[in-house]
């Protein structure tokens, strides 16, 4: 049997490395488009300040991008190092989008980023503008292919099990690409990235406005970020991920867990605004509910029901029992029984094979599972409800706070009085971590909500791990945490230093710290940068 600690530690390592990676990705997605917009303004108007904006925000972009590349390296290889059985079992489908991401998107982004930084004197204005747009398009296409891969983990379409090779194999590539879950996820995730980019530029510009430094520079940055941000935050909220929760079994479970929806109610279901989910007794204490809201959000109708957790568990129990039979038939086939009857019988039950595999956590051979073990596997076929319930609400809450802040920023920026709104500017600085927290919460909801599956309904997480020792994973985990923390400290140090310095760090002679009257106080820091 596979050691539970290896499974837990491998999950923790994947979660931590993905968490770190996702600190840098959203900003790259958003800021790359903001840079492209700024540079378009430069090429169209010919105003120097726009080029300075591209160069300065580009500097901060580069500081962030470097760690995005660093932490991204791990992600490409970690399926193999720590999730070897997963890699074998679904590589036929899952590997393709990863390889295509490299060929179609990552090459584009990484090749042109070099020209973006170093090509200013070597390229014409229009050539450089195209380069910047290609960086933005490349990074966003990267996200598309990664989310196609991830969407397939949530809702594995277009594939079938092959007992000869003991793995899932691709049946329809177009179904994998046009997986509705992947499409919804892509739009939601990149929009969240755009919001992150907008909030980043807004908060740092707000800081210059409060300090009354480099105002023309800050004002223009603020204006572009607030309009780009407003469109993005509306897209995040309106095209929320929830619409994708109706499709696929795992997504239904996720929806029920997010809403702590223990029972199936008459449609349309109410939305639980607040409450304390209690997993033991399968109820939510102190619930405050908004009638109709959940049904409308999740099913876009008032007549379709949202299935509750208790009913889902009951359905899973049936599928687990069916999966035990499928597993038994698979063993017979592997032992050499290739009779048509056995194969036909196996094919009719193969969709529940994954549910049978859930029992492998409790017993070596699922066929020998006891009643208790079957019940236990069914109980554990849904994720823990409380973490889902809370992280989702934090994400949504932060989303609405950002909507208000960005909306106000847009309004005052359009009116031309943004730099006088002291409270708004301060609030923007305080809210700077909000998009990162919201992004990480959203990521948590999507991936924690997938448990106990690595591939929804097909491959349980605990079977997916590599055969490595607990010590190996403790040590690699410590290595990742150590390296990443060290690099993150260096990143934050540079980011804060350059953000404070502002466009003076370009050494053009046009900005605040380069004017004679201002140099004394920070002469050391500006000289060093």
């Amino acid at each position, binding site marked *: 049997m596979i050691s539970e600690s290896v499974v837990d530690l491998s999950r923790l390592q994947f979660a931590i490395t993905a968490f770190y990676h996702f600190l840098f990705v959203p900003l790259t997605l958003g800021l790359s488009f903001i840079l492209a917009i700024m540079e378009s303004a430069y090429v169209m108007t010919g105003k120097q300040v726009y080029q300075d904006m591209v160069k300065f925000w580009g500097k901060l972009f580069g*500081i962030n991008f470097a*760690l995005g*590349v*660093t932490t991204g*390296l*791990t992600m*490409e*290889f970690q*399926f*193999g*190092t720590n999730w*070897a*059985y997963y*890699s*074998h*079992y*679904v*590589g*036929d489908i*899952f*590997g*393709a989008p*990863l*390889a*295509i991401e*490299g*060929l*179609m998107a990552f*090459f*584009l982004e*990484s*090749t042109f*980023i*070099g*020209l973006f930084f*170093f*090509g200013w004197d*070597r*390229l014409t204005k229009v050539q450089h503008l195209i380069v910047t747009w290609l960086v933005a398009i490349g990074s966003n296409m990267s996200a598309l292919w990664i989310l196609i891969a991830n969407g397939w983990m949530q809702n594995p379409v277009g594939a079938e099990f092959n007992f*000869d090779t*003991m*793995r899932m*194999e*691709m049946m329809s*590539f177009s179904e994998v690409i046009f997986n509705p879950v992947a499409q919804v996820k892509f739009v939601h995730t990149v929009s969240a990235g755009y919001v992150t980019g907008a909030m980043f530029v807004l908060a740092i510009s707000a800081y210059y406005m409060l300090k009354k430094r480099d105002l023309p520079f800050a004002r223009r940055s603020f204006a572009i970020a607030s309009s780009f941000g407003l469109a993005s935050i509306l897209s995040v909220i309106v095209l929320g991920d929830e619409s994708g929760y109706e499709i696929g079994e795992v997504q239904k479970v996720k929806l029920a867990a997010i809403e702590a929806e223990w029972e199936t109610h008459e449609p349309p279901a109410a939305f639980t605004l607040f409450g304390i989910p209690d997993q033991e007794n399968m109820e939510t204490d102190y619930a405050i509910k908004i009638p109709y809201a959940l049904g409308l959000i999740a099913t876009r109708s008032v007549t379709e029901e949202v299935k509750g957790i208790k009913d889902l568990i009951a359905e899973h129990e049936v599928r687990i029992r069916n999966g035990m039979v499928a597993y038994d038939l698979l063993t017979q086939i592997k032992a050499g029984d290739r009779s048509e009857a056995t194969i036909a019988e196996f094919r009719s039950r193969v969709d529940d094979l994954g549910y049978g595999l859930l029992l492998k956590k409790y017993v070596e051979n699922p066929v020998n599972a006891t009643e208790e073990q079957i019940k236990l596997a069914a109980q554990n076929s849904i994720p823990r409800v409380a973490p889902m319930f809370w992280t989702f609400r934090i994400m949504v809450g932060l989303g609405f706070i950002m909507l208000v802040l960005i909306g106000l920023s847009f309004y005052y920026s359009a009116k031309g009085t943004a730099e006088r709104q002291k409270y708004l500017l301060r609030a923007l600085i305080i809210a700077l971590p909000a998009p990162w927290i919201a992004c990480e919460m959203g990521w948590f909801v999507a991936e924690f909500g997938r448990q106990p599956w690595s591939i929804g309904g097909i491959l349980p997480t605990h079977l997916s791990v*590599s*055969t490595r020792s607990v010590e*190996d994973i403790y040590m*690699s985990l410590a290595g990742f945490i150590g*390296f990443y923390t060290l690099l993150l400290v*260096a*990143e934050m140090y*540079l980011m804060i230093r*350059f953000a404070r310095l502002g466009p003076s*760090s*370009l*050494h053009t002679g046009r900005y605040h710290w380069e004017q004679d009257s201002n140099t004394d106080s920070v002469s050391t820091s500006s*000289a*060093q*940068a």
Partner: protein
Amino acid sequence: MEYELLKIIWWVLIGVLLIGFAVTDGFDMGVGALLKVIGKTDSERRVMMNTVGPHWDGNQVWFITAGGAIFAAWPVVYAVAFSGFYWALLLVLFAMFFRPVGFEYRSKVQDPRWRNAWDWGLTVGGAVPALVFGVAFGNLLLGVPFTLDEFMRSTYTGSFWALLNPFALLCGVVSLLMLAMHGGTYLQMRTAGPVHERARRISVLLAVVVAVAFAIGGFWVSQLDGYVIKAASNLGGVTTPLQKSVELQAAGWLDNYGRYPWMLVAPVVAFIGLALTALLSMANRGALAFISSSFAVTGIICTAGFSLFPFLMPSSTDPSHSLTMWDVTSSQLTLHIMFWVAMIFVPIILSYTAWGYYKMWGRLTTDFIEDNQYSTY
């Protein structure tokens, strides 16, 4: 397209990606490894970094894409090799972490301690992966202790330290010095002044040492037991690594050169490439030396790949569990789709990469770095 043909095409394509990685990312890793050897002053080291500044990131994608392509085309190899060579791969990753941040962060602060720390980071980030790749290849030739069960779950029974045996270390040295030489020829082409001069001399030296080490490696391989397939099911059909029998045979890794004499092209190109690298560096013909060095790198990698063919990862625990390019591939459909994706995108990638080099071409000097100290690495 026939499954059998697709399997052969993908063996070639993965080879192309690995060679693409070694020829492009190889020279910037080489520049990293030589950073402290050739760059005596801060400005000189910055000259070296900035010759690869606009390109290292794109180059590194060859590595990442090779990883993704192995996942897509050879999922069993991706699973068995990376979980087996766990610590070796993590060592490569940890070392490579220093590259993006090293390049990007190093010159943003003037403190010499800060810069020195990142210089070491870039050195490690260039040298360690180059060494480990060679060590890994060496262990493939020796056989790797792993088995597969009937559910295709793999178990690796070796340790990290066992990878560091004399033969594998020799392969590691060949790999490290080969990429350092490659970086040296690149520097000859892209720099002027003392850096150029030192790069020239070190390239000559390295080319000679690599040729000697590669020849010793070749002799050593002739003394090793190779793996040979004795019986197998239909190789063009659906197979898993468990459906064949494999035996050890003295000097078996040289069998292919008797069976397919054209494969001798690989070692011959390697030696001629190395000789020309040395001669052209002596003659101060940097660009031609770089081209020769690229051929040498390609020849050396092909020699390893051809010798192993059709094996990818032999199992020393149970030779019949060895992974070969016939029995580790994805389904026919996936190979077919990915073939067309590669056919469309690799030429596009090559053209915009070439455009990038064309636009950034020219020799860098310390004067240029000092005049542009805020906008260069």
